[in-house]
């Protein structure tokens, strides 16, 4: 039994090493996706807040999604990672901030 568990752990370890880059990137996807697409939903497509909240909603919930209407900036936090997007202009729409 112990051996099986050890083998399983070893396999998970090998897989994690193999997938280290994808796994490291994964937690940032949710907040980046939400910040960017919510920003465009609000300030390019010009839909209302409840619609846009539902529009970007995923199975995994965000811990925070806020907009500053003044400078048209959106902050999203998920998995403890924060990403921001901002409206850049009438032709340029929204983009993620570095």
């Amino acid at each position: 039994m112990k051996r099986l568990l050890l083998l399983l752990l070893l396999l998970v370890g090998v897989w994690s090493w193999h997938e280290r880059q994808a796994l490291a990137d994964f937690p940032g996807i949710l907040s980046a996706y939400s910040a960017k697409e919510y920003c465009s939903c609000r300030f390019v497509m010009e839909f209302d807040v409840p619609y846009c909240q539902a529009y970007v909603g995923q199975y995994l919930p965000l811990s925070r999604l806020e907009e500053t209407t003044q400078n048209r900036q959106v902050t999203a936090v998920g998995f403890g990672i924060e990403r921001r997007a901002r409206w850049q202009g009438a032709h340029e729409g929204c983009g993620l901030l570095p």
Partner: protein
Amino acid sequence: MNKALLAVLLSLTLLSTWALSQETWPQPDWPQAAEINRLAWCQVQAYAFAPRDDRNREGVRTDALLVIKQGQVVYEHYAAPTSAQTSHLTWSISKSVLATLLGVARQEVRFALEDPVARFYPPMQAHPAVRLQDLLHWASGLDWQEAYEYAPLHSSVVAMLYTRGREDMAAYTAARPPAAEPGQRFLYSSGDSNVLAAALRTMVGPERYRQYPWDALFTPLGITSAVWERDASGTLVGSSYLYMSARDLARIGLLMLRDGRWQSQQLLAKDWVVFNRTLFTKAVAEPGEANPGGHWWLNQPLPGGERPWPDAPAGTFAALGHWGQALYVVPDEQLIVVRYADDRDGQFQHNELLKRVLAAQSGGRP
């Protein structure tokens, strides 16, 4: 003799002027057809705007449907909050509009299809054999995983748009390892489209690049609602982030329907639309999926295959995007269809919509 020739020339000129004046153009806005058989459109309405399950985001969820026949609106309907004024996200329709924009640059003789991409985008020196036409066929041979929400861990497109690639999407793509010989294998890749968007900067010059989509294409067509987002390096997100109203997108459809001519001006190189509409025969048919042409999607069957959309003519071509976005052009019927949607599952079928639209526009005639 000379007089006879002159007479022939004169009558030809008069005839073509007359023919041009018979065409309908959206100047300034799309004209409405005088008589619309509303009853005939019931089946279209029933399919596209079926009772909407927004709670579970299931089923066919059309936001906008616009049908143009011979330059006139024959059907138009929106589901709130989308309206005729909404600049709606087009997702991968952006790719085909980018190809149309490249057609203007081709008319300005800024590149040839056989040119190596590296000439216009130096990071592609890592892949010197990739030509512009390979990118346009989604056949760069660069390794790519195009999947969105179902495989986020390995999706190249998710990494490009939201994580490692988001600062410079073309550079992210150019750094991918090769997986096949360029031009030999169709592998749908948003990365290929963004390398094209980056190459356009060198083609037209960095000063013109910013305004180029508007100066070269949108303004001449009377498109006023377009928004085209960029990555942090300033490159157009040619793969995904073009927004415009349904009526404005139909203008792109009309330009394609009329072989790149807008009124009396040949905006796209004459052979460009032919290239867009020529099948990339190295692709492999997938049931129900349109076949790739030059950055547009075709209903022509691949050798040994069937028409992807059996109820639409083989000449039908389209620009297609994630979540059900579509711009269909049916030259046989002088028809343009724009559909915006928020389909989150696979229930919507292109063939079913086209079948019903084709039946309705003929007024019930078979």
